[in-house]
C-alpha cells in the first residue's frame, strides 16, 4: 500500500511542481517584461471568456485524475481483505492495548508476521485517538463507543513507529509504540511463547458467566435471537430496517440492546454498559463472530501462525 500511496504522491508532486513553476515563471517574465518604463503605458485588456473557460475546465480535469486515483487507493485502504488476521486494539490515555485472536496481549507493541493481511478492530476507552503507522501509510481515528477498522500487510521485518495522531491530552506525544514485523517462523515462535486462551474462548466463557446463554440459546428458540450464523449477515429489525450485523452492531446490541430490536423479539435484554470492559466486549464480539462458521476469519486463522512456515507465505511478499 505504501508504494501505491507514494506513486500517487509523486504524480501529485509532479503536477503541482509543473503548475507552480508555470505560475512563477509567468509572473517573473511578465513582471520584468512589462516593468514600468517612461513613455510606455499599460494597454487595457478586458479579459477573455474563452481563456476563463479553458483555465477552469482543464484544471478540473486534472483534479479529477487526483480524485479518482485517490478514491481508488482510499477504497483499498478502507476495505480489509477477507483473509485478514484480526487483531483487537483498545486505546486509552496514553497507551495502546493489543489483543491477538490467540489470546496474546501486548502494550504499545504489535507483533505481526510479514506477508499477512492484518485487520485492526479498534476502540477507545476514553477520548479519540488515532492509530498512525507512517511506514505503512495508514491512519485511522479510534473512537470511544464504537469500532473502527484499518488494515495493512507488512512486507519487511523490522520495527516501525506507531504514533497517536489525534490530540488526546497530556502525554499525546508519548502515546507511541512499535509495530514489530517478523518473519513468519519467528512470529510463530513469539506467539508460542504466550499463554492464555484464544479470544473467542474467553468470549464463550463470558457468554455463559454473564448469562447471555440463557436467552440466546442454540437448541430451542430462546427469548433472544439464536446467534449462530448471524455475524456479517443482514438482520431485519422491528421497524422494518435492514442492517448488516457487523462488529459495531454486535457491540451496540450488548451495550445498548434496545437501540436496534430484531424483528419478532421484545426489548427485554438489560444493558451491559459498565458491566463488561472493552477487553471483555472484544472477547464477546470475537465469540459471536466465531459462531458464523464459514468466514475465513477466526477459524482458519487459529492455526495460521503455526502452519505458516510450511506454507509458501513468502510468495505474497510484494
Amino acid at each position: 500500500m505504501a508504494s501505491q500511496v507514494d506513486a500517487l504522491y509523486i504524480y501529485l508532486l509532479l503536477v503541482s511542481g509543473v503548475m507552480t513553476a508555470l505560475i512563477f515563471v509567468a509572473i517573473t517574465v511578465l513582471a520584468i517584461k512589462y516593468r514600468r518604463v517612461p513613455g510606455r503605458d499599460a494597454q487595457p485588456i478586458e479579459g477573455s471568456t474563452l481563456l476563463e473557460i479553458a483555465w477552469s475546465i482543464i484544471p478540473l480535469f486534472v483534479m479529477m485524475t487526483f480524485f479518482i486515483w485517490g478514491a481508488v487507493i482510499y477504497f483499498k485502504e478502507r476495505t480489509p481483505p477477507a483473509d485478514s488476521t484480526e487483531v483487537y486494539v483498545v486505546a486509552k490515555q496514553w497507551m495502546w492495548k493489543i489483543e491477538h485472536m490467540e489470546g496474546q496481549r501486548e502494550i504499545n507493541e504489535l507483533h505481526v508476521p510479514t506477508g499477512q493481511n492484518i485487520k485492526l478492530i479498534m476502540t477507545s476507552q476514553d477520548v479519540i485517538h488515532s492509530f498512525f503507522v507512517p511506514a505503512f501509510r495508514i491512519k485511522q481515528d479510534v473512537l470511544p463507543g464504537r469500532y473502527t477498522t484499518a488494515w495493512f500487510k507488512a512486507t519487511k521485518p523490522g520495527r516501525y513507529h506507531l504514533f497517536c495522531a489525534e490530540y488526546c491530552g497530556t502525554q499525546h506525544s508519548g502515546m507511541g509504540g512499535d509495530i514489530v514485523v517478523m518473519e513468519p517462523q519467528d512470529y510463530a515462535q513469539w506467539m508460542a511463547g504466550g499463554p492464555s486462551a484464544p479470544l473467542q474462548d474467553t468470549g464463550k466463557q463470558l457468554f455463559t458467566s454473564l448469562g447471555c446463554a440463557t436467552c440466546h440459546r442454540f437448541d430451542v428458540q430462546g427469548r433472544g435471537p439464536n446467534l449462530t450464523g448471524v455475524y456479517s449477515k443482514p438482520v431485519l429489525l422491528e421497524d422494518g430496517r435492514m442492517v448488516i450485523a457487523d462488529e459495531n452492531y454486535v457491540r451496540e446490541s450488548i451495550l445498548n440492546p434496545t437501540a436496534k430490536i430484531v424483528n419478532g423479539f421484545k426489548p427485554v435484554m438489560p444493558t451491559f454498559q459498565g458491566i463488561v470492559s472493552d477487553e471483555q466486549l472484544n472477547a464477546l464480539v470475537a465469540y459471536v463472530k466465531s459462531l458464523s462458521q464459514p468466514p475465513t476469519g477466526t477459524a482458519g486463522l487459529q492455526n495460521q501462525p503455526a502452519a505458516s512456515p510450511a506454507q509458501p507465505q513468502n510468495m505474497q511478499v510484494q
Partner: protein
Amino acid sequence: MASTAIPANQAPKLNYLNNGHSLKSWLLTTDHKRIALLYLISVTVFFFLGGFFAMLIRLELLTPQGDLMQADTYNKVFTMHGMIMVFFFLIPVVPAILGNFLVPLMIGAKDLAFPRINLLSWYLYIIAGTLFLHCMLTGGVDTGWTFYTPYSTAGSNTNVVEAGLAVFIAGFSSIFTGLNFIVTVHRMRAPGLTWDRLPLFIWANYATSLIMVLGTPVIAITIVLVAVERLFHLGIFDPRLGGDPLLFQHLFWFYSHPAVYIMILPSMGVVSELIACFARKRIFGYKFVALSSIAIAVFGFLVWAHHMFVAGISLYAAMVFSFLSFSVGVPSAVKVFNWTATLYKGSISYATPMLYAFGFIGLFTIGGLTGLMLATIGIDVHVTDTYFVVAHFHYVMVGGVLMGYLGGLHFWWPKISGRMYPEGWAKLSALLVFVGFNLTFFPQFILGYVGMPRRYWQYPPEFQVLNVLSTAGASVLAVGYLLPMIYLLWSLRYGPIAGANPWGAAGLEWQTTSPPPTFNFDETPVVTWEAYNYDEIPPKEVEAPVAR
C-alpha cells in the same frame, strides 16, 4: 494620536484623526475609520501574543526531548496560539481593519449602515479578548483550537467553558461586522456605482460577510453544546452519555472550514486592488474574479467533511466530500490565473504592496496545490494530522492572509495615516517575511510526509534537522513581522506627507483627502466609470518616497 504631529501649516483641514482628541472621542466613536484603528491596535496586540506562543512552540521543538516546558504547558501553548491566531487575529484582521476603513470609502458612503453596531462589534471583540486573556492567565486551556469532543467535554480539566465563551462572543463580533457590510454594500453605494463597477475588494468582503452571517451561528451553538455537556453532563457528543463525537466534528467543521475563506477572501480582494494599481490595468476577467469570490463562499460550505477522512465517516461520504473539495479548487485557480494575466501588457512597478501581492500569489499557489493533495483521499489518510497539514494551512492562512494584509496595510497606510512609510525598510521586511516564511514552513511539508504527527511535544530524533530549519525560519519571520510595526509607528511622525492619491490609484477612496474627513467625502461622488479605469488616470511617480 500622531495626528498632532502634522505641521500646523500643512493640515488646517479637519480630518477623522484630529476631529476630537479625548479618549471618549475614540472609545465612543461611531466613525468606521476610528473603529478600524481601534481594531488595528487590538488585533495587532493579539497577533504579537499569538506570535509569542508560536515562538515558544518553535523553541520547544528545537530538540526532540520535551525540555523547555512541561507537556501540559506545551499543550496549552499550541492551543493558545491556535485560538488567538484563528479567532482573534485571522478572522477579524482584514475585514475588521481594512474592510472597516475601506468599505464605506470605496463605495462613496459616509459610514457603514449601522455605525453603532459597528462600535458594538469592537466592544464584543474586546470583551471576548479580555475573557480569553483571563482564561489564559488563570490556567489556560489545552483542547487544541478545535475543541474536539469528548476530550473537551470529559477529558480536559482546563478552562474549556471560559475559552469557549470567549470564542462565542467573538463570533457575534464577526456576525455584526458581516451584517453591517452586507447592508452597506446593498444600500449605500454612491449613485452610478453599480454591482459590476464595484472594486473587487468589496466583492470579496461581501462574499466573506455572507459566510460570517451564515456560518458563525453554527460554531456558536456548537460551543454552547460543548459547554452544556461539560457542565450538565447532557449526552450530546460523549458516547458514554449516549452522544456522538463525530457529530461535534461535523458541526465544528461546518463553520471552521468556511472560516478559512473568511480569512483568505478579503486578502484576495486586497491582492486584486494591488495588482490593478501597480500594473496600472483593470483586472483581467473582472467578472470572473468577482464571481469566483461568491463561488468560493458557496462551495466552501459543502466541503467540511474533508477534515474527517480518517475520523470514521463512511467510505462513500468521504468520496463525495473529496469530489466537492476539488470544486473549490477551480475558483481559487481562476483567481491566480487572472492575476497573472493582468500583468500582461501592464506597466508594472515594484512598490512594497506589489511585492506582497507577488508573495501572496506564490505562497497561495503552494498552499492551494497542497490543499489539492489533501483533498485526494488516498494521500490525506497518510498526511492528515501531521506536519504536512500544519504546513498547508500556514501557507494559506499565514502566507496568504498575512501577505494580503501587510500588502494592503502598506498600500492604504498613506490614506489611513496621511504619511508614507519608508520604502527601503518596507521592501526589506517584505523580503524577510517571504524568505522566513518559506524557511519555517516548507520543511514541515517534508516532516509531515515522513510521519511527524502534529501537536507533539517530543518527537523521535530523526525529525530534528527539519525542525531546526523550521525554528531558524521562524526567527527570520519574527524579524520580518516586527520591522513594519516599528517603521509604521515611526512614519506617523517622520514619514513624508502623503497626498490624497500618492499611488495614482483608481477607486473612490483615493479621491478624498488623506486622512479622510470624518464623513469621508465633502460631496457624495457620482460614479460614471468602470472599476480600475487606469487608462484614464496618469501614473504617479510613486517611487519617490524611497528617499528616506
